[in-house]
């Protein structure tokens, strides 16, 4: 059943969000700490578990894969609702700070990747 897949996905996300909020409270920051990441780990864990013991039915997988495929359209919608004006119009300082942070971070990716000792390119 398709709904089993959607429900499993919902379950993972709700658990992740809950744990993320609890973590945020424990640490004392008003933010969700890694909720989505925890949800993803949970989904990966559950789906890998199923590989070995019980198989998810094809319709169930479809319920998850549908949302995975909706990801890009959702990101397009997200881009279309950004406050682009604010990003561009509040002066050079904000823009320079943002641009400099991105450039520096981009440049560090290959450095850290190499530092991490990856053997195959």
């Amino acid at each position, binding site marked *: 059943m398709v709904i089993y897949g959607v429900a499993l*996905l919902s379950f993972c*996300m709700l658990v992740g969000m809950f744990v993320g909020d609890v973590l*945020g409270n424990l640490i004392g*920051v*008003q*933010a969700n*700490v*890694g909720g*989505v*990441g925890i*949800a*993803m780990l949970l*989904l*990966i*864990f559950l*789906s890998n578990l199923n590989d070995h013991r019980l198989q998810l039915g094809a319709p169930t997988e479809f319920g*998850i*894969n549908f*949302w*995975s495929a*909706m*990801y*890009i*359209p*959702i*990101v*397009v*919608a*997200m*881009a*279309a*609702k*950004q*406050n*682009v*004006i*604010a*990003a*561009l119009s*509040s*002066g050079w*300082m*904000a*823009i*320079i*700070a*943002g*641009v*400099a*942070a*991105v450039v*520096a*971070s*981009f440049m*560090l*990716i*290959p450095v*850290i*990747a190499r530092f991490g000792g*990856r053997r195959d390119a």
Partner: protein
Amino acid sequence: MLEVLTQVLAKNALITAFAFVGILVWVSYLLSDKLTRGHVHGSAIAIAIGLLLAYVGGKVTGGTKGVADFSLLAGVGVMGGAMFRDFAIVATAFGAHLDELKKAGIVGALSIVIGVVLSFTIGAIVAVAFGYKDAVSISTIGAGAATYIVGPVTGTALGASSDIIALSVAAGLTKSVLVMVGTPLVAARIQLDNPYSAMIYGGLMGTTSGVAAGLAATDPKLVPYGAMTATFYTGVGCLLAPSVLFLIVRAIV
């Protein structure tokens, strides 16, 4: 007739958004195919058009939610909101390989901390260069260079003024937009072509929306790996910026 149509579109806002985004994506893939012969990925074009429309929306309506401020397109705000975005990001993890994750474990975690400290430092230096002298303003702008959530969280925690908080949001937004647009352009040069570097990328960049869109336009298979580390970044940023990093700034100035 037209009035009835408008009513139908407005009443079924989310459905209208699905149709609207569908058309936008279709046009984008057509442009990708005909204009660039597939060199620029269709999703990259769709995201760029989305940002452009958001700019137009903001200009025309004076609002803060891009095209979602047009009443007919209010559903785009729901479709592109945090709830659906996070739901779809979690779904992309289905089919990701545990082994790949384990391989990047420590380096991935390290990249988050390095990413927060790096962006914060650069933002703080820019703030100083622009004449800010108090530790609270410098830290808030530095935090904004991390993400547009870390900025306001830090600013509120430290008691920064609202224009400084607005600046920190703008810095974070600039970063997010630039990551969306820039990632597919520099992907080859920074060797962003495997799950391992995608996780480091997510950890360093940290802006979930930027990382999500940037990777989608580069290689959708990499999305879960980058998104995984990026979602921890804002949490780590909210933790470090108003505490350790602020204390360091205060000790220096």
